């Protein structure tokens, strides 16, 4: 099981409390995790990645195991600790704005 921690506003949209647990088939990458997330919570389509370009929205970041993975290629494997469910993938909203 992959664990994903969403920002509070996205938890509200997805109507979940706490971490999200996802079953991911095949390699565990940013793309495969986000695909699984959006398949289970379709209301999150477009809120993390742009609908058309599939690019990460500018004010969001991906963190795991104390590392900023935001600029890693979307098909690069995520750390083993994330793939095994020991550590979550954090989707973080930038601390910005008013």
């Amino acid at each position, binding site marked *: 099981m992959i664990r994903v921690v969403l920002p509070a*506003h996205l938890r509200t949209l997805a109507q979940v409390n706490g971490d999200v647990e996802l079953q991911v088939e095949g390699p565990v990458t940013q793309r495969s995790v986000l695909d699984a997330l959006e*398949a*289970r919570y*379709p209301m999150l*389509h477009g809120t993390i990645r742009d*609908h058309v370009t599939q690019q990460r929205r500018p004010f*969001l970041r991906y963190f795991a195991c104390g590392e900023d993975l935001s600029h890693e290629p979307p098909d690069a494997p995520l750390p083993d600790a994330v793939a095994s469910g020991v550590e979550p993938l954090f989707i973080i909203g930038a601390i*910005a704005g008013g």
Partner: protein
Amino acid sequence: MSRVRVLVGTRKGAFILTSDGKRGRWDVSGPHFSGWEIYHLKGSPADPNRVYASQTSGWFGQIIQRSDDGGRTWHQPGTPPGEPTTAPDGTPKGESNKFVYDTSPETGKPLTTHQWYDGTQHAWEFKRVWHLEPSLSDPGTVYAGVEDAALFRSTDGGKTWQELAGLRGHGTGPQWQPGAGGMCLHTILIDPSDPRRMYIAISAAGAFRTDDGGKTWRPINRGLKSQYIPNPEAEVGHCVHRIAMNPSRPKVLFMQKHWDVMRSDNAGESWQEVSGNLPTDFGFPIDVHAHEPETIYVVPIKSDSEHFPPDGKLRVYRSRTGGNEWEALTKGLPQRDCFVNVLRDAMAVDRLDPCGVYFGTTGGQVYVSADAGDSWAPIVRDLPAVLSVEVQTLP
């Protein structure tokens, strides 16, 4: 006894204010969508319990919300949680927040760029929905005016959206350019006598009209003069802030432009200035009395750059003569040290008699006049900055 429901969009959520027909005692519900910018909410004239809302965020983009019980509960009109995102045949289900510009050769190809601030051409990029305009007759049909300027339509209650690309592609698009607030399509008026006719307005491009249900469009800006553009009487490029219409006379339009208050008596074919004795003819909203089609309201604002009321006095101006002759309405409004703004979608009128007039400020006040503007009272004083105000008159 009739009731009113006021739908307020703010920088940090939506609020719903309800009262009986006296409009003296109010119940306040909210914030809905706490922490999100709510650019606009509007109810369906065909089913007042159906309300659409534009929920946006610099972090998470655009969301469309819908209520089918008058704003008590809300949902995104796409696929519910836990359900597959594709239909059994593999085609994607609806995605209520997906606004994708039409780039098909048949409709989208004529135009892919608009003018940028530096005069170069810039690709269209979707940013947010500024205005939602439900159909007058079908609660499942709703139009969305978006930034970068384009018009979208949903015919399935907001589940999916298709661009009416004839507007963006009709030919003048490369001359459109963003105003300070972005290049937004902020006004959508549907002619109640002919639903194939619609008017829209864009900052900074101008006003446009369709007579065939949105397939083809043309600019309707003859008579507008904007000294701040290279050709003050250009076909497009005018910063129109708002257009209003009384449903009983759909060919008569009133416009608040960046500067100048204008009117048209021929469905926008030509415009005449009616600023008259206003202390400043800059402002954002404009609206028309529900039962007196020659009675109009504006809120003069000092500009450029200040964007607050002249002399710190918050005054609505009313003309009972369709413009040119204006009177200041001050009773109940702050007449000293007031430096708020009133944004373009933040004024509305109800259908009661006497007509109620409402507006919201960037200081978080929502004011009501239950006597057509003669006197005013705050419904709420301390909301986040108000972006939009709409009112529903209910049985």
